[in-house]
């Protein structure tokens, strides 16, 4: 999948966890808020589709859905075929679109699959696989100063639900 892979950067990858999924009522999308596992108090936000966002939210809740969601189906393929989702890496950002790579391991062979971060993370959470971002993408992330805006949005959402 990546024949001309450049040499690994000397800077290590940054591990992330999904902090929460926030509804953006203006655009019918979801905002994925990711935090660093090393405790650095800065966030990384990715806008994802409503369906993908809900799938990630369900994985966080570990609530069992009556029927498998699309990402549950991919996990199920892995379980049947003995393919392990080893890790996912957010590798690039171009014009505000993030790119991710899913690393699959099968009988000692690693293969990579190109994915949107929403699918990569939806699968990683279900397979307990770590989520990473390259230091370069971390530096170029959007939402560096959006924490205040996000808090306001969440307060508004709570208010809207009470009505």
């Amino acid at each position, binding site marked *: 999948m990546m024949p001309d892979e450049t040499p690994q950067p000397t800077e290590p990858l940054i591990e992330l966890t999904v902090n929460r999924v926030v509804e953006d009522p203006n655009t019918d999308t979801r905002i994925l808020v990711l935090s660093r596992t090393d405790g650095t108090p800065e966030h990384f936000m990715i806008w994802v589709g409503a369906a*993908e966002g809900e799938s990630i939210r369900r994985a966080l809740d570990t609530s069992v859905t*009556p029927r498998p969601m*699309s990402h549950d189906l*991919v996990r199920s*393929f892995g379980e049947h075929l003995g*393919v392990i989702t080893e890790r996912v890496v957010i590798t690039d950002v171009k014009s505000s679109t993030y790119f991710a790579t899913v690393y699959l391991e099968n009988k000692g062979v690693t293969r990579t699959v190109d994915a949107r971060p929403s699918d990569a993370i939806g699968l990683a959470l279900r397979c307990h696989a770590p989520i990473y971002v390259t230091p370069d993408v971390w530096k170029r992330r959007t939402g560096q100063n959006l924490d205040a805006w996000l808090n306001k949005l969440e307060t508004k959402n709570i208010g809207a639900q009470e009505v």
Partner: protein
Amino acid sequence: MITQMQVKGLMFDPYNNAYIVILRDEDQADMLPIWVGKSEASSISLALESVDPPRPMTHDFMKAYLDAVNAKVISVVITDLSENTYFAKIHLTYEDSEYTVDSRPSDAIALALRSEAPIFANESVIRKQTSEELDQWLENLKPEDFGKLDS
């Protein structure tokens, strides 16, 4: 007994605010409508119209995942209907063995269209579905109702 079905179209059901995938057998004798969510409908629509989206959608990713390990979708079967929920199975070959994986029909159909795999339905599912009321309702639908999703 199973019958091979073709995806004839996709339509919006304004009463339930959902989408319906219409499956028909080759003789156009039996019809099987399956209600699906918005994102699944959009994914099936992209496959029907052979649109290559700039980034892989969830089912494109699913297909790429299977391709990466050389697993192949050989067929999908709509197997059962219980309390208005359909059930499907995806049949895969991988390293000379066959595997069967439970799935929602929407995922199975979206994946089958991308894998050029045949879609089948159990006869029992088709029988359960052909209530006269529903047939009549579907026959009354105009061709315009089977339009594109993004209208």
